[in-house]
């Protein structure tokens, strides 16, 4: 089976890649680009642990074929480590003990960062909706909600 040549902008860098048809975005991010913040959980769009941004929209990278991302812009947690909003959100997650096992934390941070961009002062309801697609297996949701609220609040107002 012939490989297909695609180019994806990942975290600001253009990456020419060779992919097989069944390769999903998560496969390319983890296996070819070594971005291990992107976790694989259910592989069917139910747990959201693989969430990344594609062209600025939060998506599940297990539900997207790599070939469909040709020419698009992908952002994972690794690409936001120097971002002030993300730094603030991470600090808030740490301060509030929002990580128990930590498996969902990268995806929770991505969803929280996405929320903070659009809504600097979200209500608890908005926060719950924003993280509703990500399953925390430890069910420590309240610490996460507190963290997101604080992480957003300290934004540039």
């Amino acid at each position, binding site marked *: 089976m012939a490989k297909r040549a695609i180019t994806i902008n990942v975290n600001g860098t253009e990456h020419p890649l060779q992919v097989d*048809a069944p390769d999903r975005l998560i496969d390319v991010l983890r296996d070819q680009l070594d971005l291990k913040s992107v976790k694989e959980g259910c*592989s*069917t769009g139910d747990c959201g642990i693989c969430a990344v941004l594609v062209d600025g929209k939060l998506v599940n990278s297990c539900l997207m074929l790599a*070939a*469909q991302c040709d020419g698009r812009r992908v952002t994972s947690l690794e690409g936001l480590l120097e971002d002030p909003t993300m730094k603030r959100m991470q600090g808030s997650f740490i301060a509030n003990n929002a990580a128990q096992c930590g498996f969902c934390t990268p995806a929770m941070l991505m969803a929280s960062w996405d929320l903070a961009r659009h809504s600097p002062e979200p209500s608890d309801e908005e926060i719950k909706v924003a993280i509703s697609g*990500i399953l925390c297996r430890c069910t420590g949701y309240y610490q996460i909600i507190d963290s997101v609220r604080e992480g957003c609040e300290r934004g540039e107002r």
Partner: protein
Amino acid sequence: MSSLEIFSPTDLNDALRFIEHDGRNAAVIASGTDLLPRMRRRQISPSILVDISSFTEDLRYIRQSDGTIRLGALTTVTNLLESPMFYGNLSIVREAAMLFGAPQVRNVATVGGNICSAASSEDLIPVFMALDAKLKLVSARGERTVPLKDFIVGKRQTAMKPSEILAEVSFSPPEGHGWTAYEKLGRRNMLILAIVNEALSLTLEDDVRTIRSARVALNRVSGKIPALAVKTNDFLKGRRVTDQTIAQAQKVLASELSLTSDFRGSGEYRAEVAQVYLRRLMERCTRQIGGHS
């Protein structure tokens, strides 16, 4: 998925020409949020995926003209939520979109994909059925329009030919004294497939008491097939909205449902919920119509 190939057509016509000849073993993929998990579970194994996801210029739009709303098949659920169109008597679309999957899914999942999946778990099908939506199917040889109620012909089966692509969904808001409402029950509030979802479009006569038309649609009417509750709708037409009418309509609805049980819920439970929802939807719609008359 070992022998899978992807065909990326240059435009819609290119895609249509391709499936005209090789449509049998091909599957059209938009965002793939339903298709990819089904391929992974080996419920389907197409040899070629025809990727139409990039045709957003042609197939992603929300337009209104002469009272008809037209949605391009690649319109995402998030597009529906962000549109100013789905408030007031069309808030049913917004209600369903808010309870659809979760943000990551809503951001990519398309209206067309939801309809073509034709599953009993699809949130938008009962909504569009209640709105009497029409579907525009295109092929290399032309186009045809099919009412959604005739499009779903069985569990995960549609009237679409292998050479066709769903291009557009169109519907009109209820006229005059009309309103719409939606209810969904799942094991949790978000990111869940429905045990029952039920949609109603209700129009009353000028007396604001007599039912001109009622269109109730559910995710399951018979087995796992989303459909209109035809007998209930016939029963309601021409009657006055009273407690007694609703109680009788609930019985008619229960009699026309033929529901199966699965791990999400038993058939009996679904039938019970469907009746409760019928009352709730009728009451919500009549209250709104009363408030706007």
